[in-house]
Structure formats: structure tokens, C-alpha cells
């Protein structure tokens, strides 16, 4: 019964709302302040993005999106996403599998390392790769003798993107897999499943919503990363600009409506991410509710 505090608490509370609740005028005021705050801080900026994007007409909007530099920025962004996301998905699963299913020394150290990109300013995240691969570093000098350029080129963008986005899948999967014990996987093994079949038929279906959401976050962040990529990209128009960098370049040239037009693409990605979060949470709540119901029956 101790595993069910939130649902029971909520039921009780709704039932007793008259007993320990605020008067109507206070409730209304608090809700009004919240809505007003959210309107000013979150909604107004969102509205302004679209308003400015279409300020000079649909044609200008369309031209900004179909501009060759925009197209190349989209390409660079997609390339970074296409490399960073799969690598980070594999990492996320590998890290979650070893951390939640096995005991070994140094586990907490690994968990803290996964948090590093969260703790570090994006500017510093970019900087470490300049220090590592820049022209005056040993590695950078060695690579340049082979004509390989990392910093201020595409490889640098991909590496920086991978760095800032690598924790997302792992961070989603670890709590999900921690709550599911290994018993279902062990059951699959006793029934004769090979490791691959166990993963495919038992592990994957159980983590799919966490994996889905973690991957969405990872991809959204890979598309939208600004600071770290800004440091390593070198801002070469039409070559090493990602979408957010392109927005900055266009904005700094005072082509406001064009900048906001490109920004609407990024806002769309953000809204899709929020939608994905709601879907994943909804699916998972359903599942946990069922498990709770199950646990309840067993207690009774």
C-alpha cells in the first residue's frame, strides 16, 4: 500500500476540497496570477515569433525558408542529428543496461559523468573541443597534417552536438529501467531466449516510451543547440551554420522577419517535443496505473 501515495492522496484531496481549501476569491486570484505570468513570460514570446515571421507577408516568410543558406543550414543540422542521435541512443541503452542490471565498482562515478554536459555552460562545452582539436593543440596539429579539420568545420559541430546531447537517452532510461526489475528478462532466459531475442521481445517493449521520449529530447536538443556549436562552428555561411546559428546570422544582419521565419521551424520542433512528452507520459501513467492496480489486488 505504501507504493500508492500519489493516487490515493489525490482522490482523498478531491473529495475533501471543501474541508481544507482556499476561498473562491483566493483561488481565482492565484489562478489569474499564474495565467498572467505564463502569458507574459512564455506565451507572448512564442506569439511574437510567429507575428514577426509573417510581418512582411507570406512571400517573405517563404523566401526566408527556401533561401540556399537556410537549406544548407538545415542540411548541416540534419547531419549532426543523424550522427549524434543514433550514437547517443546506443550509449543511453548501454549505460542504462549496465547501471541498472549489474553491480560494479565506480557506478556512481559513471552516473555523475553522465551529468557533466548538464553542469557545464554550453560555451565551455564547445571550448573543450577547441582546446582538444584546435590548431595549437597536439591532436589538432597532427590531424591537420592529414588535411583533417575538426574545429570550425563539420566534424567539430557533430562532436559538440554529440557531447551536449549524450545524457538525454540515458537519463530517461535509467529511472525507467530501475523501476522494472530484471525478472521479466530472467524469465525470458529460462524460457530459452537468446540475448538478442530477450532484448527484442522483452526489454525493448518495456522501455519503448522512455526510449522514444529520450530520443525526442536528444534530437530536439541536437537541432536547437546554440552555444556549444557556436563556439566550434566558425560561422561559415552556407557551410558550417546550423539552423540556430543561421537564425543568429540573419538576425544580426537586421533581417528580422527572415530570422523569425527560420525560428518558426525551431519552435515547431520544440512544440513536437512537448507533444511527445505528453504522449510518453500519458502512456507511462497508464502503464503504472495498471501496475498499481495489480499491486493493490495482490495486497488485498
Amino acid at each position, binding site marked *: 500500500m505504501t507504493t500508492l501515495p500519489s493516487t490515493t492522496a489525490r482522490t482523498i484531496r478531491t473529495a475533501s476540497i471543501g474541508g481544507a481549501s482556499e476561498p473562491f476569491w483566493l483561488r481565482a486570484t492565484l489562478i489569474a496570477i499564474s495565467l498572467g505570468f505564463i502569458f507574459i513570460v512564455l506565451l507572448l514570446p512564442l506569439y511574437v515569433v510567429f507575428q514577426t515571421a509573417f510581418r512582411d507577408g507570406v512571400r517573405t516568410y517563404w523566401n526566408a525558408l527556401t533561401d540556399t543558406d537556410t537549406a544548407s543550414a538545415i542540411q548541416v543540422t540534419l547531419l549532426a542529428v543523424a550522427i549524434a542521435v543514433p550514437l547517443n541512443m546506443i550509449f543511453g541503452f548501454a549505460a542504462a543496461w549496465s547501471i541498472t542490471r549489474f553491480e560494479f565498482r565506480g557506478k556512481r562515478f559513471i552516473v555523475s559523468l553522465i551529468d557533466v554536459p548538464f553542469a557545464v*555552460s554550453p*560555451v565551455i562545452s564547445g571550448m573543450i573541443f577547441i582546446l582538444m582539436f584546435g590548431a595549437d593543440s597536439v591532436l589538432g596539429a597532427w590531424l591537420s597534417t592529414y588535411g583533417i579539420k575538426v574545429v570550425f568545420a563539420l566534424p567539430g559541430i557533430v562532436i559538440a552536438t554529440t557531447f551536449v546531447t549524450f545524457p538525454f537517452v540515458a537519463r530517461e532510461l535509467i529511472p525507467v529501467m530501475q523501476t522494472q526489475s530484471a525478472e521479466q528478462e530472467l524469465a525470458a532466459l529460462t524460457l530459452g531466449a537468446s540475448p538478442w531475442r530477450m532484448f527484442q521481445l522483452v526489454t525493448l517493449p518495456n522501455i519503448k516510451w522512455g526510449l522514444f521520449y529520450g530520443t525526442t529530447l536528444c534530437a530536439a536538443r541536437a537541432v536547437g543547440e546554440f552555444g556549444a556549436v557556436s563556439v566550434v562552428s566558425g560561422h561559415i555561411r552556407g557551410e558550417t551554420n546550423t539552423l540556430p546559428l543561421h537564425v543568429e546570422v540573419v538576425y544580426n544582419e537586421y533581417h528580422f522577419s527572415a530570422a523569425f521565419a527560420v525560428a518558426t521551424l525551431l519552435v515547431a520542433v520544440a512544440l513536437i517535443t512537448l507533444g511527445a*512528452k505528453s504522449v510518453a507520459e500519458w502512456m507511462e501513467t497508464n502503464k503504472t496505473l495498471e501496475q498499481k492496480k495489480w499491486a493493490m489486488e495482490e495486497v488485498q
Partner: protein
Amino acid sequence: MTMEHFAALTGAQAETAPRKAKNPLPGFGLSIGYTLTYLGILVLVPLSTIVFKTAAMPWREFWATISASRAIAAYGLSFVGALSAGAINCIFGTLLAWVLVRYRFLGRKLLDALIDLPFAVPTAVAGIALTAVWGPHGPIGEPLNNMGVQVAYARLGVLVAMVFVGLPFVVRTVQPVLDGLSADVEEAAATLGAGRVRTFFAVILPHMAPALFTGFALSFARALGEYGSIVFISGNMPGRTEITPLLIMTKLEQFDYRGATALAVVMLLASFAVLFMVNSIQWKRKSHSKSFATVPRVRSFLKG
């Protein structure tokens, strides 16, 4: 059976080495191998460059860089800004969490989903959008400007951006704790004659204090490192509206890698100190609170 008894019995078997305990689940070698290699290449080696770069730097130069007046001004702005933004977010974040958990009204679910917007919107987009709203010709900036209050291209602008990026951290850490607080505690307080205000300060606030502090610290850390949304709105005047990450960026653009590294060391120490505090609080919370499980999800949003 005593330990000696056990030892005596197994003594006969101890002549051969015991079999190693083996986890029947597959894939440990592969998964830990990938994890360690990945973390090594992507995190440990790049981070170590900071250490090498700093070690190769004369102490005098290091000190001169980090104590330059422009740097001090940048720390001051970053620190005071992040602190104020954290405080503002604590007030409005608690209010939002309260309203979302306790009240039922039209649009509550939408409001709940919108809270994550600053996590999801790329910082560059947030930066130009906030500038447009709070700028001299923006829907809020213009009336404020007429009253003589300048937000964009001033220190207030930095604060606005920091509030924007940090808000979700407070809401998302406080929300589950409020949700998990059972009604009977409050009802008990009410039956004992405590008014709503008294109940809030005596019963509810102490209960959510650790979560509130965690949210504050996460919001603070995020604001401290924030770059994208601030550079557009702040105006970037050295000594006045220049934040520390921007100063690092400026040094990098001038190929002053040593100077940038020195400032980065200062920032890293500050953020690690904050995260260390958060972790120690979370460990404490973990021991007596089930709502801890929701914290990792919030944290995975950090910088997102």
C-alpha cells in the same frame, strides 16, 4: 551455525578456487565497454584539456585573467542575475506548482505542458523572441520604455532571460512533492485550528523546502551557464551587461584560449559546487521521500 562452523565446513572446498558469481543477464561486457569508451572519449579526455591548459599557465597570468575588472563585473552580473532569477522562480514556480496540483480549471493541462516550453525552445530562438517582446518596440518593452524602464539591452534583460530558462526547474521539482503531500496532514492542521496561511507556512512549506531548494539551485546553475538566450537581449556591453559565458566566448573569438580556459575554470568550480549541494540534498531526500524518482526526469531537461 556460527561463522567458524561455516569456515570449517567450506575449508575442505577452499582448496580449489571458488567459481566467480556470474550475473545470468547477458551483455555486461559489451554495454559497460561502450559506456566507458564513449564517456572516456567524449567527456574525460576533452575535460582533461582544461586541466592541462590551466596547468601550463603561469599562476600570475591565471590570477591576472580571472581578477581583471571586466571579469569581476561579468561574474557579478552572472551571479547576482542567477540568484535573483532563482528567487523570482521560487516564488512564481511555487505558485504555478500549487495551482497546477491543487486547482482544477479550464486549460490546466495545457498550462502544465507549457511549463516545459523553455526546456524545449532552442536558446537562440528564446533570445530573439524575448528581445522582441521586451525591446523598445515590443508589446511590453514599449510601455515600460515610456515609463523610463529599459529592459532589453540592460541588466534587467539578462534577468528576464534567466527567469525564462530557469522557471521549469522550480515547477518540476516542487510539483511532485506537493502532489505527494497527503491531505490528512493539512486537515489535521486545520482541525487543530490553524488557518490556511498558518498551515501553509507551518506544514506545507517545510515539507517542500528541500525540493524548493533543489529547484532553486538547478535554476541558478542553468542561469549561470546560459548563453544563447542572453546574448541577444543583454546588449553585451563590457563591464555592464556582459555575462561570464559571453566573456569566455569573446576571448575564444580572439584566440585567447588561455584566458578563456582560466575563466572556464572559475565557472566550472561554481557550477560543480552548486550541483554538489543539490546532490547531497537529493541523497537526503531519497531516504524519506518517494518523489525522488521524478527528479532525474527534471534533471534530464537541464540545459534542454
